[in-house]
């Protein structure tokens, strides 16, 4: 190795004085360690996501089934009312009168031609 390089390395890599603030930094409490449970965060997140997705799926399925059930009850119930115009539909607003109508029409049967406007469900007799 050349003397020039030896001299330059010794010159430019010489030891330096530490800054005055270093001791003050040692007085600060060390940064908090990340909790050990952090390695479980992805599995936990995945489980929570699956649980949330399952909940939404079940809720959506129940909600989707509800108008159909309601329609069946309404279709079965409404024929025996003298004033019914057979303008049946599955919308939620008529659900409040479903059970009164059902109780009243237990022994009646509806015409075969009657169905729901919206879902075309036939009347269950």
């Amino acid at each position: 190795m050349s003397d020039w390089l030896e001299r330059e390395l010794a010159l430019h890599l010489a030891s330096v004085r530490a800054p005055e603030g270093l001791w003050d930094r040692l007085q600060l409490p060390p940064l908090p360690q990340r909790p050990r449970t952090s390695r479980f965060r992805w599995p936990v997140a995945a489980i929570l996501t699956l649980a949330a997705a399952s909940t939404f799926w079940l809720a959506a399925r129940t909600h989707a089934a509800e108008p159909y059930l309601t329609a069946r009850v309404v279709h079965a119930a409404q024929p025996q009312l003298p004033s019914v115009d057979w303008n049946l539909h599955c919308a939620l607003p008529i659900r409040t009168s479903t059970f009164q109508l059902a109780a009243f029409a237990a022994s009646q049967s509806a015409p075969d031609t009657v169905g729901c406007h919206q879902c075309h469900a036939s009347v269950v007799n």
Partner: protein
Amino acid sequence: MVLEETGRELVAACQRGDREAFRALFELHKDRVYSIALRFTGDPADAMDIAQDSFLKLFSVIRQFRGESSLETFLYRLVVNRCLDRRRRERRLLPLVDEWAALLHAPEASPSETLLHTEMQARVQTAIAKLAPDLRMVIVLRYTEGLAYDRIAEVLGCSPGTVASRLHRAHKILERRLAPLARESRGGYV
């Protein structure tokens, strides 16, 4: 010998939880720790982080220190491991800017000398920064701390032959990279 005794007494006092002893130990080694970190990373902020981390680690494990090796060697290993483990992006230009500013304010140097020194400093440090970490660390321990081959080997946990080999390779690389600078410094045009 006296220094060794002082060092042992300091370590014993630290192991008893003596706060003043911690301060004395820090004062004894702070420049050494900071210099290695600075010369390895090339960045004062990174060097401060490494020095802080190294001393905190030393103070936390000093009760387990049994004295199989000297405290200096033990401390060197702490610093070296932290330097090598450093995964942060290296910012090499900042210290050069700082040193440039400091040198421009130095009254004893003429502007041309200052400029030449700063340029040399920048090019030497850039060449060192491009070395592989294991080669760079050997260079830093050799030229910043002036450690002998066997001492470097003890710190790095390798053989003196490996240290010699790494130094040789590092020198070759640096000679090749800094050859133009050497010609310029001699004032010749080859």
